[in-house]
């Protein structure tokens, strides 16, 4: 009997403790959901009274900020397409061919990729992009991101494709399909869950990145949202909390939408071979 009480109370104690920790982590998120609708929002948590959309009206009137969202979309989607297509083709070739030294290639690229997207390489990257004449173009941002993300994307995808039996494409080819047909009809649909992971991962990476576009772009009408968000800071560097909160909510929506879409459509699961 005593033993049961002990277990009962330790269970309650644990739940209370876990709830406290949960609440602690939930506070910033709740602020993030409430502040945009509060005309007098500050850094403290407060329930909006009255509930208003005036912050959003002000944000939507700021063309620089709204164009920033659009630019982010161009750069992210462009980068995702570039990374997705190249990584799929490269990973497929690396997985299926008998090219000697193919793992060495992947590992060396992987090693250098962490340099490309790191801040240490910003000066050489700026110089390269400048000498190619691509400074202040969306393409430059897309290319630099692709350079940074591709090796990791290839590495993840190659591992994924390695786990898919070759017999899929072999059976297609024996049945009369050309290698290209076998790739599109059979291999690609089976690889798709892996590609989806790459797409989401690279989208989130590019969408949230500040340094690379900040350095490579000059004109304000090309800046992405991650840079444009600084227009909601006063000259002295203090944030205008109301507008910042509203803009941050808008800024995070596409990523949330992408996650929801992918988990609804694909469910973030891998399906490799059929269990035999």
């Amino acid at each position, binding site marked *: 009997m005593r033993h049961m009480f002990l277990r009962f109370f330790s269970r309650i104690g644990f739940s209370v403790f876990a709830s406290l920790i949960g609440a602690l982590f939930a506070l910033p998120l709740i602020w993030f959901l409430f502040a945009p609708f509060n005309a007098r929002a500050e850094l403290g948590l407060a329930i909006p009274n009255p509930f208003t959309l005036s912050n959003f009206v002000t944000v939507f009137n700021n063309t620089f900020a709204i164009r920033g969202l659009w630019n982010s979309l161009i750069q992210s989607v462009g980068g995702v397409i570039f990374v997705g297509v190249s990584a799929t083709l490269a990973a497929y070739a690396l997985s299926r061919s008998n090219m000697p030294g193919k793992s060495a290639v992947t590992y060396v690229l992987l090693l250098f990729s962490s340099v490309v997207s790191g801040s240490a390489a910003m000066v050489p990257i700026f110089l390269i992009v400048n000498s190619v004449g691509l400074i202040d173009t969306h393409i430059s941002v897309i290319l630099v991101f692709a350079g940074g993300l591709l090796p990791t994307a290839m590495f993840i995808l190659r591992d994924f494709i390695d786990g898919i*039996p070759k017999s*899929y494409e072999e059976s297609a*080819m*024996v*049945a009369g*399909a050309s290698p290209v*047909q076998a790739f599109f*009809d059979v291999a690609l649909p089976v690889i798709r869950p892996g590609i989806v992971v790459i797409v989401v991962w690279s989208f989130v990476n590019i969408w949230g990145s500040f340094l690379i576009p900040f350095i490579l772009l000059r004109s304000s009408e090309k800046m992405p949202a991650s840079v444009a968000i600084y227009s909601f800071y006063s000259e002295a560097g203090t944030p205008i909390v109301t507008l910042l909160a509203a803009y941050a909510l808008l800024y995070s929506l596409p990523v949330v939408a992408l996650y929801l879409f992918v988990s609804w459509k694909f469910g973030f699961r891998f399906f490799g071979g*059929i269990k035999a």
Partner: protein
Amino acid sequence: MASVQFKNVSKSFGEFVAVKDMSLEIGDGEFVCLLGPSGCGKTTSLRMIAGLETPTSGSIEIGESDVTFKHPKDRQISMVFQDYALYPHMNLADNIAYPLKVRGESEQNRHKRAQEVADVLKIGHLLERVPAQISGGQQQRTSLARALVYPSKVYLFDEPLSNLDAKLRLEARGFLNHLQRDMGMTAVYVTHDQAEAMALATRIAVMNEGEIVQYAPPIEIYRRPATTFVANFVGNPPMNLLPVEAMIADGGISIRADGLSMDPLPVSARAAKALETGKTLTLGVRPEHLHIAAGGESNTISGKLFANENMGPESLVTLERADAARFTARIFTDDEIRLEQNVSLAFEARHVHLFDADGLRLPFDGE
């Protein structure tokens, strides 16, 4: 349908030689099994017919035309894979009809044909499902349906039954046998299961270490195994093999070993030749040719009882000799066999196989 020919085909992967200078002729309408332990080169040989591997040297012909370097899609073949290789994102109808799709058939024709084949294989009611939703046996039949949906010159099977449980395997084996009788297809079938090979093949090519050891009809392989390897591989349980001392005396071969008592065997030309250089031979007797000695038999082997396994219609009786060598008899009786500690097994002289020191069969004269 067409014949298949290997002409001095070799295949190596780096240092490893998978297939050594293999020549093999598979006739039109023949069902040939490539039988051997894993790593013997049987699957590599099959994949070379399919075009999934390219020979290092030699050539392969399908129906008189050289296909050595042709792409698989240009060979007009079909193949059933060990893991079935069903496309997980397509339903069964699309899986079965895929070969027709790449041949540009209309969707209506494809699905009609898929339905016909699926009905024959008793999976016609599952066509809307995807592979993950059907059982292993149904997956196996789906992959078979995909191979049969279009006319091929050669049908290739890569251990298609090895992922099935024992009962389904027997059923599928019977169906394949029926199919072969029905269609008279040219088929090459890779397996490591000797029972499958015996049941299905018109000829069996027994392979070991990249070479064909014997290529003959199943009954020939069973009755006259060319080497101790074949003797040991075909048959369940395998042939009992025993090293013996032999010499020619009084116009016969007298054979001696511990616990063995035998009348002299007739001298054959090959045996006489083998005994010129040495006196160690290998004696072989199949388990089904042994019975419990009743007394008075002239050919017997005796030892201590090691195991007595009742299988229902038959029993396996194993004796162990002083040197730990074992001899198994397969006794066809549904009675329980009661045995003493010491057992004698008897056999007839006509069921004896002799192999020389290199393991090659010594045929009797007139064989």
